[in-house]
């Protein structure tokens, strides 16, 4: 484990940015934080987390797949790939780090999504342990410990110092480059920090939320639960929850006619939208109830069924904070799962 004084953190950033684009949470005018590319003068945010998740770096909202150039009646296929830049994402919370495991299961199993894969290869994640979880946090429900974030390098922050621990080869390599700015240390300070976090975790309002009622094999039991109608009754059908979610991975492939050709690109889709997975015969999820159910069944039942029991929610709480009508996975789990915590 290595540490560095927070006074020198900008030197660390500068060192990292020498070799790769460095992205880190930065405060915006509106009070929220967003990942921004670091450059001299960029100030690292103290916010718990960003509105958009770091999923964007590996699975951007829009991504060109290829292009066709059309001249008269001739068509030429063109390569538009651009995902070869090395980059580092700094300050990723434990929940968001976990989301990459989930995305990996989707994109890196055969057939491998080479766009995602290539971005994963070029990216290094420096995670950061939480110090002040929010009431909307429920990562623990999914077995995530915010004091033990994974990633290529794990980091802990105290009032004055920051501690780094490399977990992977890529991480080791990067940490070595920072050796001039950091010094070796023991893990006592970090352990003290961990204890503090654990104590707060026990005070979180959603600490009792359980996944017992969900998981693979529950489809028949939960699919026709009468509660879906009530839960979905006020859903606006917007895509906010899916677009701020670190694990939502659905996309649509579309063609854009440029006038001289076509750009084929993919963009995030949302199961909340009425034209999601619309096919020639129409849409197989006819009303908002079915679309709403799809999202939660996918996260809590279908995904674990196909992925060794792994839920595709990390409890980051973004959808709790951002849903225009405050309907979210926690309310669904409590209602459908029947385990009212209070």
């Amino acid at each position, binding site marked *: 484990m290595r540490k560095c004084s927070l006074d020198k953190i900008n030197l660390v950033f500068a060192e990292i940015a020498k070799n790769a684009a460095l992205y880190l949470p930065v405060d915006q005018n509106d009070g929220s934080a967003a990942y921004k590319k670091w450059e001299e003068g960029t100030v690292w945010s103290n916010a718990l987390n960003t509105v958009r998740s770091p999923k964007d770096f590996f699975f951007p909202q829009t991504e060109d797949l290829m292009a066709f150039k059309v001249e008269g009646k001739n068509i030429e296929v063109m390569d538009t790939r651009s995902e070869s830049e090395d980059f580092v994402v700094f300050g990723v919370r434990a929940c968001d780090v976990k989301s990459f495991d989930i995305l990996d299961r989707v994109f890196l199993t055969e057939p491998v999504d080479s766009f995602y894969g290539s971005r994963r290869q070029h990216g290094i994640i420096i995670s950061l342990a939480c110090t*002040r979880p929010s009431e909307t946090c429920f990562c623990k429900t999914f077995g995530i410990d915010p004091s033990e974030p994974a990633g290529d390098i794990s980091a802990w922050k105290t009032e004055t110092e920051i501690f780094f621990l490399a977990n992977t080869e890529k991480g080791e390599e990067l940490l070595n480059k920072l050796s001039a700015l950091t010094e070796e240390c023991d893990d006592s300070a970090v352990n003290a920090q961990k204890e503090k976090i654990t104590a707060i975790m026990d005070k979180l*309002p959603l600490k009792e939320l359980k996944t017992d009622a969900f998981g693979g094999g529950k489809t028949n039991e939960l699919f026709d639960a009468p509660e879906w109608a009530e839960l979905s009754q006020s859903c606006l059908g917007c895509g*906010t929850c899916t677009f*701020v979610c670190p694990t939502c991975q659905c996309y649509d492939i*579309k063609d854009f006619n440029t006038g001289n050709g076509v750009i084929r690109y993919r963009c995030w889709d949302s199961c909340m*939208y009425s034209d999601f997975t619309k096919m020639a015969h129409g849409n197989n999820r006819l009303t908002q109830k079915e679309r709403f159910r799809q999202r939660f069944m996918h996260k809590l039942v279908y995904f674990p069924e196909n992925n060794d029991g792994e839920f595709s929610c990390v409890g980051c709480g973004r959808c*709790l904070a951002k849903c225009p009508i405050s309907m979210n996975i926690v309310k669904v789990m409590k209602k459908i799962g029947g385990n009212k915590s209070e």
Partner: protein
Amino acid sequence: MQKITREQLIDKAVALLADGTVSCVLGWSKGEFDYDVTPAMFNNEEELKANFVFNDFCGVNFSKYLVAKTQKCEGKILVFLKPCDTYSFNQLLTEHRFDREKVYAVGIPCEGMADIAKVKEICGDGISSIAFEGEKMAVTTLYEDAPVMLAANDVLAERCINCKSKKCVAFDELMGDEGNVIDSNRFDEVEKLEAMTPDERFAFWQNELSRCIRCNACRDACPACTCEKCVFDNPNSGVENKSPANSFEEKMFHIIRAFHVAGRCTDCGECSRVCPQNIPLHLLNRKFIKDMNEFYGEYQAGAEVGSRAPLVNYTTEDLEPGEVFDRRDTDA
């Protein structure tokens, strides 16, 4: 803090359910925390007593829900409308979007709603409870022992600071006092932007709109956006797009959306409230409202049912598009 209480509203709802005036109630249902209320239908006293809430976080504009809910509900729906909701209510009636006969509207006074983001700005994250004590709210967090006492004005939502009217313009029954239309300063921010140079304005909007993730929350929450199919969802419209692929599409979506609701937007502020990226979308709508007020005379969408919006109206003496700028340049 709200003057009308949860109990008063429940009593009203229970009475109307009991005498058969209505068969269900559209209200706010309590959430996990003290601020995350969700619109819900209540069918009986039991449900109301268990889950109905009314507090400073009941900002959702119910009017739009009536479009779908009146189609589904057999009898009449009781809906509680805050003054700003009543304007949307009227506007939807003007556009024949639901059957007035299927709704029993109770106008309720509103003291302005709180913005949870502002609460968090002051008290920090990790809110464990919010209690309403008289004129104040007591916010307890995971990190402080003593609750922080907040006055309503400290955390008032932007749209409520610039409230245009405390008057319910549509109702079957009014609870509390009838308020007044307010001389608000809602165009100040628009004016601030207008006073900037075009380059500054461009930079401002470029920065704001670049955050758009096209989640469509603004559109889906907007009571004026009640198209059966939005042009941006319709593959045959030629402008369909699902993502803000670049800065053009960000602008296209928001310009066209603002244009489509121009003259119909009541300035309820839902668009900005629901935006997960905090884009001040209301400043686009307000620009249209301000312009149309200036060009064609004061017009408040939804002030009365059946009124003719400026863009579906004209006079032979209207100013020319070019004069819009001449006017402003001479003013400057």
